[in-house]
Each structure stands twice: as structure tokens, then as C-alpha cells.
């Protein structure tokens, strides 16, 4: 299943790119990522405890970063297996400067595949869930990229993340409306 979208982050592109390639930041931003251990050049073993609402599962797998062209492009490949099935996702992220360099627009196009129970029973929600997780990821990433280097990282409580994302979404709606 294809997903795509655009997110504007109020942070400079170099900073966003740096955050995007920092495993500690990634662990904090990938929804439910409990563990991200380096296993090779730009590849990591990961444990994701993730899901939406009461639907949750634990997935063990890998995260790989490919096609790295700082500060404008890279590709993230996530692969995990667990009791409810498997999930695989790959996304091309293209970063563009915006707002006189104060902001970054990330365009992503990705492919999500799920298998096992989640594929056979969750059909109507998979796309929504994928979008939701992408949103959570970028919302968290924005917060990360806005911190001053060296400061403690922001916390991404699920609730706070969701609320922050929600307010961003509302803002977009209003922006669209005012157009």
C-alpha cells in the first residue's frame, strides 16, 4: 500500500536531516520504538511496541537508512515481525528548505506492507494507521529538531504527541480554509 504526504517542520533543514539520521533521535521518534541498536553502517536492530488504540503488538526487526544524500534525501526501510504478523515499510524522504531556511518541508512517499493477522483483519484501518504513524513520527521529529543541541530531548508521550499532531492538523485545515 502506498502512502505519501508532506510535512512542514519549523526547523532548519540541516538540523532536521541531522535529527533524521541520529539513531537516538530516531528511536524517540519512531512510534513505539523501544530499542534501536546499531548492527552495521546505517542499519539497526529494532524492537517496536506499536499500534493504534487498543490494537497493539510487539515487532522485532530492523531499521535501515539508505540512499543518504545530506541534507536533502534519504530512504528509511523498516522491517518487523511479531505475533500479530509482520510489517514492512520503506519511505523516500525529500527535504526542502522553506520559510527562508527556518523551516523544512519533508515530502515522503512510501510503501507499507503488512502480513499475518493484521493484514487479514485490519484491512480497513491499515492505511489510516500508517498515516497516523507517519504523522506521529514527523511531529516528534519536529520537536527534536527544534531543541538546541545538547539540551535534553523532548518527551513524546503518546498523548502529547497526538495532541501536538492534532493541533497541527487543525492548523492545516484552517490554512486550507483561508486559501
Amino acid at each position: 500500500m502506498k502512502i505519501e504526504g508532506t510535512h512542514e517542520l519549523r526547523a532548519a533543514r540541516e538540523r532536521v536531516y541531522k535529527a533524521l539520521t541520529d539513531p537516538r533521535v530516531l528511536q524517540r521518534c519512531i512510534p513505539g520504538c523501544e530499542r534501536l541498536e546499531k548492527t552495521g553502517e546505517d542499519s539497526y536492530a529494532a524492537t517496536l511496541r506499536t499500534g493504534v488504540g487498543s490494537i497493539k503488538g510487539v515487532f522485532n526487526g530492523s531499521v535501515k537508512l539508505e540512499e543518504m544524500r545530506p541534507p536533502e534525501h534519504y530512504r528509511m526501510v523498516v522491517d518487523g515481525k511479531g505475533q500479530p504478523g509482520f510489517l514492512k515499510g520503506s519511505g523516500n524522504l525529500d527535504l526542502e528548505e522553506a520559510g527562508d531556511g527556518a523551516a523544512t518541508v519533508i515530502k515522503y512517499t512510501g510503501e507499507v506492507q503488512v502480513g499475518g493477522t493484521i493484514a487479514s483483519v485490519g484491512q480497513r484501518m491499515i492505511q489510516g494507521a500508517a498515516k497516523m504513524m507517519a504523522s506521529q513520527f514527523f511531529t516528534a521529529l519536529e520537536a527534536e529538531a527544534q531543541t538546541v543541541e545538547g539540551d535534553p530531548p523532548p518527551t513524546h508521550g503518546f498523548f502529547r504527541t497526538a495532541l501536538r499532531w492534532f493541533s497541527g492538523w487543525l492548523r492545516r485545515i484552517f490554512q486550507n480554509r483561508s486559501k
Partner: protein
Amino acid sequence: MIPAQFDYVAPATIDEAVSLLSQHQDEAKILAGGHSLIPAMKLRLAQPQLLIDIGRIKDLSYINEQDGQIRIGAMTTHYQLESNERLRAICPLLPECAAHIGDVQVRNKGTIGGSVAHADPAGDWPAAILALDAEMVAVGQQGERVIKAADFFVDMLTTALAPGEILREIRINAQDVGGRLGQSYMKVAQPASGFAVVGVAVNLALDAGGVCQSSRIGITGVAVKAYRASGVENALKGRVLDSQIIAAAAEHAADAVDANEDLYASADYRRHLARVYTRRAIEAASSRAH
């Protein structure tokens, strides 16, 4: 299909339930009617370690009127709402929406509180909750707070209830508009699951001359969460609702909506159905207001 093991408690009071939930947080789930949670548990897509069954708490199942509000206990079943004569007179949207949920057996056991707190993107209640501008009363360790409908549905299966909070009551302001009220709920059901491909709840107030004083339209099934069709509402306000006005307004039913896509319906078709059913639901509501 067999769920994984869990511990089970059936507290006698809501305070006890809140305290258990706060204690166990993510590990625990509230069991209300169980019609979303138990299927997920049987598929082992949900494996809570503790189930807190609020079905034994006294007085969570009621429909009454107080302080100009209709108050509905979270454990009130869909069928109780569907069959309540008083609601048919004062807030027909509730019974009409209830009658569209699942099937008879599901309505006998499933609860409004469970359904609203689960926030299924294709659930029926969220549309009505938005159209009625309901208030959700949440109880947490810090006490009660009221969450407005517009703030309640956050994302797919995600609400503004904080971890540790339980939805206790739903309040609906009795309509104080002097004119005539018209409500309706219309739905395209997915043929297998019965979930809403599109569900539109309309709540209109017209003055004596038929001019739309206010309208609230909640749409479910189309996006990752139910939403208010404010573009439609704005286009109706202050207008005499003839079929042209309604049709033109309904065109805004899916403005700026990132629509869901599944085997049954593409995003385009969902948006289209949202517009068609919004028009039909407004027409029905408006004819009832006359």
C-alpha cells in the same frame, strides 16, 4: 478464537476503576460492552494484562434530563438509546443513530461509552456526538473534566481521554433554539462488517420562516476520525433550506479531508458518498423540521 490470558476485576465504583486504571495504565483496558475490544482480544491484536469491567458499577446506565441537558451514562446500551421514547421526542438523532449500529445483538450489549471511547474511524456514534456537540465527562484521579466533542476525537482509535481516565457520561445540551429542530442520521454500511463507509449525522435548527439558524454536521467513516463538516454548516447558515441550497452546501462535505481507502471504497468515492449522503441527510433533517 481464544484471547490471551488476563486478570479481571469488576470494581463496584468508578473511583475504584479509575484508581485501578491509573495504577496499571497501558497494561489495563476498560471493558464496557466489549464489542470492539473482545474481537480484538480474540484475534490477539489486543492483549491487555488486566481487564477492568465497568459493567458492575451501579448507575452507569441511564438516560435522564438535568440542568437542560440530556445525560447518558457510559454503560447505556445502543438498544436502550434506540428504544427510548423520550429521546425520540427530544433528540431523535440518538435513537436513529443507535439503530444503525451493528446488529440487534450488538446493540443489546454494546454501549455508547465504549463505542465513543474506542473511537473507531467507522463507528456511528462519533458522527452523532459531533452533530450534537456533546460533552464527554471523563473521570480521572484528579477528578472529573468535561471534554467537548470537537476536542474529543483525536485520531484513529485515539481520543482526548488521558491514560487513567474513564468516560463516565455523555451530555447533550437540550436544544434551546426557539425554532424547529431537524435531525437525521444516514449511512452507507460496508456490506460485510456493517461499519460506516460514510455516516452523516445532521442536527439543524430552523426558525419559524425556515431559515437555518444553526446546523451541526458530523461525518464518520470517511477519514481517520469523525469530523464536523464546517464548510457545509457555514453554507447552510442563514439560508432557507431549499434543495439547491442544500445541494450546494453538501458539496463541502469532504473539503480538505484526507479520506480513507479500503477494499470497498476509494478515497474519491468516499468523499463523493460523503457529499451525497450529507445532502440526503440534510434534506431528511430539514423535512423533519418542517
